[in-house]
């Protein structure tokens, strides 16, 4: 099998040369078909965006037909489901703001410190323990954070502040802060790591301590990406739903108090959806008024954040 037939077998494989170089068909239908399928799939993403914008726009338009947009944006009473109806969205905005402010107040400093530690100081083994922990923290569903706020954070806080209500902005803000901490720290970590090592070495060679290098070189050099991280985190905290629904309550108010029950924009949408609201009714439409505001704000934040992120990446 090895030697005797070898020559014959090698010859057998040779084919007549001189195959035509010309195209047999002008268009290769398989290539066209594949490209068509792939671009159809891609168009779905465009379709999704368009549908979101059209849907929210249409329903919000119907809503603002009934309620003047000025009353909606500047009114300080939100009471759309019971008589006498009031459609001022500001209490919901205040609720959302309280949660965003508190969560950013927690996530931003902690996130920057964690990122500084991971990118500047941590040895490889420590990094490879802390990073997965943060990833797990990021992967925990928001409903779990809501539960944690309700059954752990609030009772602890109530020992500190006896006046605190069962549902309150503080515990919701704290858990949302914990929730977005991994996102902030990983975005900051990326930002710090993107600073050119030559720049840092220049600082060290002038005799600066690592703290001075961080304050004087790394922080300013990554300012744009830090800002982008903050913006994206705010957008995320604003859109957060289940944790605030569970922990912050359903009482729209304008009191700017962390100790009281509030309602965020997202929590309102959930409240309406849980009740059996008929399509087209006013309550249903209020949902879209709030959603339009929420989508508008997060859209602007996302576009801005994405831009700043890329601006320094290039």
């Amino acid at each position, binding site marked *: 099998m090895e030697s005797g037939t070898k020559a014959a077998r090698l010859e057998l*494989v040779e084919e007549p040369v*001189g195959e035509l170089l010309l195209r047999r068909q002008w268009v290769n239908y398989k290539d066209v078909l594949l490209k068509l399928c792939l671009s159809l799939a891609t168009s779905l993403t465009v379709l999704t965006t368009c549908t979101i914008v059209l849907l929210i726009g249409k329903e919000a338009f119907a809503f603002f037909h009934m309620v003047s947009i000025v009353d909606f944006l500047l009114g300080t009473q939100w009471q759309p489901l019971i008589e006498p109806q009031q459609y001022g969205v500001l209490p919901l905005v205040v609720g959302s703001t309280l949660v965003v402010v508190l969560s950013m107040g927690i996530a931003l400093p902690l996130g920057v410190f964690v990122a500084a530690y991971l990118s500047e100081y941590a040895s490889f083994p420590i990094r490879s323990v802390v990073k997965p922990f943060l990833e797990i923290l990021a992967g925990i569903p928001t409903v779990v954070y809501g539960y944690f706020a309700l059954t752990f954070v609030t009772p602890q806080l109530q020992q500190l502040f006896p006046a605190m209500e069962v549902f309150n902005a503080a515990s919701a803000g704290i858990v949302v802060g914990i929730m977005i901490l991994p996102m902030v720290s990983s975005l900051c970590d990326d930002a710090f790591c993107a600073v050119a090592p030559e720049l840092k070495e220049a600082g060290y060679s002038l005799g600066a301590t690592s703290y001075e290098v961080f304050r004087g070189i790394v922080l300013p050099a990554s300012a744009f990406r830090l800002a982008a991280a903050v913006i994206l985190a705010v957008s995320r905290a604003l859109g957060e739903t289940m944790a605030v629904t569970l922990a912050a309550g359903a009482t729209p108010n304008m009191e700017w108090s962390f100790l009281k029950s509030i309602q965020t924009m997202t929590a309102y949408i959930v409240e309406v959806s849980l009740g059996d609201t008929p399509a087209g009714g006013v309550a249903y439409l209020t949902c879209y008024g709030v959603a339009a505001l929420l989508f508008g704000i997060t859209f602007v934040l996302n576009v801005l954040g994405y831009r700043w992120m890329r601006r320094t990446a290039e």
Partner: protein
Amino acid sequence: MNVTPSCALEVKGLSVSYASHRAVEEVSVCFRRHRVAAIIGPSGCGKSTLLRSLNRMHDFDPTVKVSGQVVFENQDLYGREIHPPTVRKRIGMVFQKPNPFPKSIYKNISWGPWINHMRGDMDQRVESCLRKAALWDEVKHRLHQSALSLSGGQQQRLCIARALAMNPDVILMDEPCSALDPRSTACIEDLIADLREKYTILVVTHNMQQAKRISDDVLFMYEGRLVEFGPTTQIFSQPRVAQTQAYIQGKFG
């Protein structure tokens, strides 16, 4: 279109330009059938660019513009009615770094014939290609193991076998030994010497001694232009152009 029958590939006034600069300018040359031609020159002189334009590998980079003709079997390869995949089937290529597919050794060879619906017994084809590439004895007991388990030199020979499986007329080699150790290099050089009986081979190399060892003809390029083309013995003993002589003597490059 008149082509002297001894030309396997004839390049006529070929220019290649990238978005910002011209890499190859007005090169005209005739590569003889069943000979080994070496393309030499200092790095960045357009050797690889020239080689890649011979089997239309520039088609995938929209910033590259090619003008001029490459005549193969009385056809201009850049003609409108030409089917580029068929061009690449007939004019095979081996790359600088060994790039086997992350599949088994067997599949690496059989993939090309398979997608091109080539007839014939696949086992025989694989065996004959591996034999021609002097790899059969080393891998015959592990044809179905991953090609990535081979050494660098073996991988490069596998890549040559893979190109042979398409039964090409011309094989383009883009610095095939630059990533290999001396022993594997020697092995590939022997292989090239064997293959020239059946194939026309074009080798880009930055190693002048290698060009001297393996080639019949030498093409010296400098800054995108063809400086001198001729039989290896002549180029290395009595170059006509002063620049060639200077390069061969190691005065620059």
